[in-house]
């Protein structure tokens, strides 16, 4: 009976739960799904992380390459973040070039990197005007069950913390770079941005960490990204029904709490990887 009701009247089905201040999967309105993190599982990448937020799974792999810096910015390297939502992760995505959602997510991650200054591109310069690193950060969604943005940020942050740049010296005689893959150095992570996503149901009820189903039924989305100094990096609300100032304040409070939780998780996993080595 309940299963039939869920399919025929999904919105009513969700409303009947929200009325009792809970959600169909048993969570409270302001409860995140269990978040698990696995770091460094891909040996072909220079840094990698696998994040699971409930069912949503995102894998971030970072590959570093050498390039020439731009003439306008001779002392800066590059960070190239891209989010991929392949047809593998959900039946809603079609094969072919990235759709609107994947493109908007890529731009969002690029904004997070730029606004939070998680890495300064100056740190990626090897020799001014001649040689620098480019970090290709590819976030691949493997299982799409909503709130892919939060998962992408965590995956990116953890993978960046896992990335080790090989040592490069420039040969004085030939001027050619020489790479030593054995000697590697970690990146300088300056900030720890973490996102928290929210959905608004019926213009009034606020829920955190929506599943794919909840995302589809809600009337508006909001993602707040904060760093460890409780500064806001991104407050992204792509339209939808209006939100009052009090609700927004509530979201920011939840986001700062989430930042602390996730930073602790990332540090714990990084530490456990180090001690295991």
């Amino acid at each position, binding site marked *: 009976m309940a299963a039939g009701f869920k399919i025929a009247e999904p919105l009513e089905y969700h409303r009947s739960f929200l009325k009792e201040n809970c959600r169909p999967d048993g969570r409270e309105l302001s409860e995140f799904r269990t978040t698990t993190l696995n770091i460094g599982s891909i040996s072909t990448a220079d840094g990698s992380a696998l994040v699971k937020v409930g069912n949503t799974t995102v894998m971030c792999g970072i590959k570093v390459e050498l390039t020439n810096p731009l003439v306008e910015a001779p002392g800066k390297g590059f960070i190239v973040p891209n989010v991929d939502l392949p047809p593998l992760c959900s039946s809603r995505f079609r094969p072919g070039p990235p759709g*609107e959602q994947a*493109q*908007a997510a*890529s*731009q*969002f991650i*690029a*904004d997070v990197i*730029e*606004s*939070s*200054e998680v890495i300064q591109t100056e740190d990626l310069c090897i020799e001014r005007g001649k040689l620098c690193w480019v970090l290709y950060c590819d976030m691949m969604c493997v299982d799409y069950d909503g709130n892919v943005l939060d998962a992408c940020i965590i995956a990116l942050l953890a993978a960046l913390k896992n990335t080790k740049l090989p040592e490069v010296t420039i040969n004085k005689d030939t001027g050619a770079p020489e790479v030593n893959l054995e000697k590697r150095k970690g990146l300088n992570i300056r900030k720890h941005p973490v996102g928290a996503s929210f959905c608004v149901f019926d213009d009034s009820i606020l829920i955190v960490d929506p599943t794919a189903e909840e995302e589809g039924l809600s*009337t*508006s989305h*909001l993602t707040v990204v904060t*760093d460890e100094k*409780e*500064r*806001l*990096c*991104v*407050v*992204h*609300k*792509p*339209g*939808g*029904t*209006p*939100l*009052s*100032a009090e609700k*927004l*304040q509530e979201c*920011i409070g939840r986001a700062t709490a989430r930042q602390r939780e996730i930073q602790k998780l990332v540090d714990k996993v990084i530490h456990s990887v180090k001690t295991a080595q």
Partner: protein
Amino acid sequence: MMEVCGSTNVSLREFGCEQTLLSRPDGSASFVQGDTSVIAAVYGPAEVKVSKEIYDRATLEVLIQPKVGLPSVRERSQEQCVRETCEASLLLTLHPRSSLTLVLQLIHDDGSRLACFLNAACMALMDAGLPMSCLFCGVTCAINADSEIITDPTAAQEKESRALMTFAIDSKEQRVMMSYTKGSFSVHELQQCIAVSQKASENIFQFYRDSVRRRYSKNL
């Protein structure tokens, strides 16, 4: 039919708007904020592709064309912002299984372009006579190095700023419909910027009203 609004206490640049300037679309408008200029065109309600059909409401598509070159990932993200803002204010359920297309062409970019896109979109939707539950406007605020808030910044001011926020404000309760930010800022600064934007929105809605009134007083 060019109208101009002077800047009041919250300093906005000179605004200008012209509706129905294109003959082919069902609604069109140009919007000028200082040197930033955008033309918007609305087509529809029209027949929809089967793959994009939604059974209980109209499908809205927003296309942003940059001044030169092809639209990139940044335009796609702005399209999403404009589309979802329009979807929230339009009464799309009145036109089920039909399509609406909004094309925004950037003519010149001198800062606050997302805000200008939103304003042009709203004027064009109005011109097309589509039923809406409320109007909306876009306001951009920049926080400069001295922590001063500048509304409707120019491109140079945007470049110098440490944080940049664009909000869409609705005309009914002046709440935030859309927010798009860059740079890092404190919670207090965010609240200040929202308050300033809400104040600025009054001026913009007044400008909307004046320009529409003037237009119809001439036509009638």
